């Protein structure tokens, strides 16, 4: 088993990461469905993961990969809790539209 140096420049990975992050952000800001917002957040986290792994590769360090493991862990936990919250919310009020969830105002 051999692992060769990648010929793709670091900048490309980072650029892809930035683009995905931006798309995720737009999703968070524009979507009404709270579930889709959640998905956009996951996308943003993946974009960050990509950066971490790219640097990990180019610096010959496993720290970045360890970080990504933690991020994945936290993302799983977050998804479990977040979806639990959504279910609890829908029970109170049958909607996932953020426009209807404005109780913070009061």
């Amino acid at each position, binding site marked *: 088993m051999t692992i060769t140096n990648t010929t793709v420049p670091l900048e490309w990975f980072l650029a892809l990461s930035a683009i995905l992050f931006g798309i995720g952000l737009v*999703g968070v800001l524009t979507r009404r469905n709270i579930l889709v917002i959640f998905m*956009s957040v996951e996308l943003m986290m993946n974009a960050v993961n990509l950066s971490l792994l790219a640097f990990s590769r180019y*610096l010959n360090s496993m720290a970045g*990969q360890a970080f990504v493991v933690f991020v994945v862990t936290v993302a799983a936990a977050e998804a479990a809790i977040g979806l639990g919250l959504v*279910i609890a919310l829908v029970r109170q009020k049958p909607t996932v539209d953020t426009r209807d969830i404005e109780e913070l105002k009061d």
Partner: protein
Amino acid sequence: MPFDLDFQQIVFLALGFVAVVASIMTIIQSNAIYSALFLAIAFFQLAAIYVLLGAEFLAVLQVLVYTGAILVLFLFVVMLLQLREGPQIGDARRWQAIIAWPLGLLLAGELVAIIFSKDVTTQMQQGITNGAVTVGQYTPANTVAVGGNVQAVGRVLYTDYLYPFEIASLILLIAVVGAIILSKQIEPEGEERILPSTGINIGRTGIVGRKQGEEFAREITPMLEAEHGAHAAGAEKGGQQS
């Protein structure tokens, strides 16, 4: 020369293009199920890119956890709730979308511009040379020497990052408990209460929040007007405040 690409680069560009397109489709699909499926495509592309980066363990993790567990959970919830998003256009929050799209693109553009114009690779090399950036020991050769990427990640996780690793496991445990508690149907204690003076049912929880207060005020106002006339306004005020 822009078109002088080797195999890895071509693969990367292909994966990246599909990932970007899938991501965009994720956020513009009005159906949440399609969104989730497009997101799965994007995650698969990312997994492949991870392999390109020599992070095979994370690539597997990406497929198993993100695509296999999290996204399936999303799909499950979406289907469970069976709710659809309303139309996006003509909505009261339209200005939000009008600001958000240019903002997101600006952010991405700015980041890309910075990344390319500052020449990250060169700066990193400079940092390595003058000691500002530390280079790890896991060169591709060393990774092979310890047995591969999975062994390398395991070594780091169980030595340098042992405590964070344990804490992460604790977080998962708490998340499991929390998810169960949140999803469990909790009945409010006690019986439904009825205001003795008016006979209005205020439920098990009483009047909570502004909307319930307004509803209560709407219900009670005619009664009070019938009884006391002028006192109605004050009572409505009181209802809102409670």
